[in-house]
């Protein structure tokens, strides 16, 4: 391998990429923009659920009940309606996701020991959100029931209110969330977005860069020169690996500074595996580019083989373990999943090679196989 020839190819490629506005945008802006847009957009936490109330009772107890919703950070009070008739309009327009209807004689019946029902209308368009909303409503409702019970005990048994409270909750539950202490979805999605941004931009960039030479015919400069296949491929890919490596740093900074995701693990492990992943994704681009002959085809194939599986099967949105068996199998075929494990592991769990070695090994295998296939596919004396 002659380093001068590699340098000639690499510096030519670097100049082309940095001078072509479209490429420049694709190379440096797109990953950061994705991170920004999806980082803020792909929040799966259900909070600030907008709701309205219909209070038919207007008693102190009904106000007490509703107050628990008003002050919850999961709910956002939009107003009180005069009657049920308007509720539909609110739900239809999306201004409210839930309506809580307190019936007449709410206080009277409860105080007299009779059961009553609070009706809750929940917008079920989006099942995940509806389920979570229902869960919050149930939790608030349960707490209210417990307090009613405690009040009853205190009144009938002559206990103090604290004592009554203790008696009604003999078994306490203490939950501690590990790694993502506040159970923020950003903590889990943002590290995975590093993977996603790299996985989409890096193969695309590489594939377009190589196919462009085939399309214009400048590849003949290489075919007819004394540069070897390896020299060309290395020189050609170095700029793209460098760009992606730079993007790794930018994306990491965005995750830590902008999204305030804690980084608990080893930075060295993260960087080394990231380079490995960049090599893998660049390799995908290379292989695609050697199989097609137009930039259009390269674009479409790259999106199909890298973007779509990455969104579905990498654990970006849905954990791989919750996928169906077939999907889990598919997930294991794409490199995105392994790197997602590594990124989440290093960011949140502070786990090292001892745990992550299978994922690292998978990336090594991918990079090697893709590189070898690319090298084999590239010929300086093609049939057409």
């Amino acid at each position, binding site marked *: 391998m002659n380093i001068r020839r590699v340098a*000639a190819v690499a510096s030519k490629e670097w100049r082309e990429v940095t001078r072509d506005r479209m490429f420049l945008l694709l190379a440096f802006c797109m990953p950061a923009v994705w991170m920004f847009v999806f980082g803020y957009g792909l929040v799966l936490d259900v909070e600030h659920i907008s709701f309205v109330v219909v209070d038919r009772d207007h008693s102190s107890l009904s106000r007490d009940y509703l107050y628990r919703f008003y002050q919850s950070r999961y709910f956002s009070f939009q107003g009180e309606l005069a009657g049920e008739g308007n509720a539909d309009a609110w739900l239809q327009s999306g201004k409210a996701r839930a309506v809580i209807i307190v019936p007449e004689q709410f206080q009277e019946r409860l105080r007299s020991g009779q059961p009553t029902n609070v009706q809750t209308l929940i917008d079920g368009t989006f099942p995940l959100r509806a389920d979570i909303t229902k869960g919050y409503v149930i939790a608030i409702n349960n707490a209210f029931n417990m307090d009613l019970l405690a009040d009853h005990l205190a009144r009938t048994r002559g206990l103090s209110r604290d004592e009554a409270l203790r008696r009604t909750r003999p078994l306490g539950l203490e939950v501690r969330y590990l790694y993502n202490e506040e159970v923020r979805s950003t903590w889990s999605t943002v590290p995975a977005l590093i993977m996603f941004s790299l996985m989409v931009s890096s193969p695309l960039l590489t594939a377009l860069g190589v196919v462009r030479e085939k399309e214009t015919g400048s590849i003949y400069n290489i075919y007819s020169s004394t540069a070897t296949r390896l020299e060309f491929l290395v020189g050609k890919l170095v700029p793209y690996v460098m760009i992606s490596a730079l993007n790794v740093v930018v994306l990491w900074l965005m995750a830590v500074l902008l999204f305030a995701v804690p980084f608990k693990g080893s930075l060295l492990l993260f960087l080394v595996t990231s380079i490995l992943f960049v090599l893998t994704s660049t390799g995908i681009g290379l292989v695609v580019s050697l199989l097609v002959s137009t930039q259009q085809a390269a674009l479409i194939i790259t999106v199909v083989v890298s973007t779509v599986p990455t969104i579905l099967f990498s654990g970006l949105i849905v954990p791989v373990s919750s996928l169906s068996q077939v999907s889990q199998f598919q997930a294991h075929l794409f490199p995105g999943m392994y790197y997602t494990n590594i990124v989440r592991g290093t960011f949140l769990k502070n786990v090292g090679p001892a745990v992550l070695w299978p994922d690292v090994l998978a990336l090594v295998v991918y990079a090697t196989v893709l590189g070898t296939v690319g090298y084999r596919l590239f010929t*300086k004396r093609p*049939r057409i």
Partner: protein
Amino acid sequence: MEGRTIPNSPITDHASPITPVVRVSGFVKRYKKQIAVQGVDLEIKRGEIYGLIGPDGAGKSSLMKAIAGVLSYEGGTVEVFGTTVDSERSAEQIKQKIGFLPQGLGLNLYPDLSVEENIDFFARIRLVPEHELDQRKARFLAMTRLEKFRDRPMKNLSGGMKQKLGLICTLIHEPELAILDEPTTGVDPVSRRDFWTILAEMQQERGMTVLVSTAYLDEAARFHRLSFLSGGKVVAAGTPAEVQALVPGLMVTFEATPQMGAMARLKTGYKQVEALGSLLHVFTEETVPAAAMQSIISSLGDITPVHLRVDEPELEDVFVALLLRQPAQPPPAELPRTMGLLANHGLAIEAKGLIRDFGTFRAVDRVSFQVKSGEIFGLLGANGAGKTTVIKMLNGIMPPTGGEGWVAGADMKTAGGAIKERIGYMSQAFSLYLDLTVVENIRLFAGIYGLDTKATDQRLTWIVSMAGLKGYESNLTGRLPMGVRQRLALGCALVHQPRVLFLDEPTSGVDPIGRRNFWEILSRLAREEGVAILVTTHYMSEAEHCDHLALMFAGRIVAEGSPGEMKRQVEQEAGQLLEVVTDQPGPALRRVAEAGFAGAALFGTKIHLLSLDPPQDEARLRMVLASDGLHIQSVSTRPLSLEDVFVHRVMALERQEQAAAKGAAA
């Protein structure tokens, strides 16, 4: 060829000097089922400029790529520098000695890199030492007059400049064999001439061997030896003189009225009859001038030819004669009469002081001309001279900054829609839908122009027979040969029977017979149907077909007249064309240039120069060269070609511009 030069520098090569640089035998190349080249034999000797001539799809590119070791092939052997090129490994061995310029104007260059960066890349990938690179770069940039564009991104160069840069990049590592695939296609005549000069110098100085292909038949005379390819086979090979000798005959040129009547009569006896403006051009197989004239006069009957002249045929005429001997020629196109179309001899196009500015750049500067009905008007000029902009303004596609224009009686400023109904337009890249069949394309264009079913069917029949598309009706347009595709595009432009036809560089990539057919259709459209035709081209042999020409330079019309008038103007200003044949053209050219003959250039193995006083200059030339011991074999005057006219005019203007720029700077 006897006059072949012996390279000055000794060649360090394991093969003996007699071994040809390239030896190809029984070469076969297939693309899937399609056979591109079948059984070509070829031998290129060291130090010669070898030409591959032939239309698109003749197999030139496949052959050249295989020789350059960048394409595998299915049959035969290819030997380069004594190495059999049959695998990627063996191909690698010859690549240091080879420079390859693929087809396509500047397409192999890197648009975002500057001129210098492009050269550096090619040099570095070939491991040219940096100090040598600087020297060579300086020399090449000076030779190509690209010095002042050193830092300009390649994408902002004109077509001609791109191609010169491509040549530098191919030659920067000083290859022993340069393989250039259609390097002059789409390049204006001045840049083309520069290109040939550089190549001739390199070949003379370094004994470089050159394999070059071209679709311009008039360039054939520049080669030492050549192969004429058609349909994947060699039709003729040898020196230009040898090829010429294959088809003995003479060209008879004359005027006759009515031209179309005369043509019809001549066609019964002669295969090659061409209308060039008001002139008729006939190839006869007679070899005695008097007999040739007599045979023409007798076959014309009661039409009397005037200004009768007999010349040696050009190589292009020879090639066409050779092609016509091939079996399975496409049927000649017929032009059925259209009903109810009469020629009215008014003005079809009038441009008055047209101006177009793009920002501060004036692309078109006070352009005025007139085109009558039934006239073929040629707009000539280098890339970027403003030809296409003029057409766009007249078509009503682009508003002019100033000036006026009328097309088919409609004012181009106010009647854009009406103009579009009355004109046909055929662009550089034929605007056909490649995934539709021939008939579907015609029907689509008929639909776009709102023809009813009856009219569509009528025009469809007319177009198919006019354009010679019989048998191709249900073929996909993308699979048609270029010549057929071009005639289809012409047909589509004529679907609504326009009175005015605009053709923007219509014949690039079309084979010579196809081109002749095309021009025959055009002249009949003009003569018989009275259609006014405005055509742009930088194909100078085509400009001869026009009745009237205007040469554009930097947005202005700088010369106007019939082809004959334009030649006479230049002859009066600069003199006649002298052709000098010597045994050592390289040293002779240097000596001639030193002796003060400006504008002397190599044309194949011959030297061409302009002379106001041929007898005196001939005597001086003989004296100058004899003093250096160089032997002159012959000096003769040749008729000026339109290309000579173009180059002379544009070079003079460029010199003026430079002088003005210097004056302004001082």
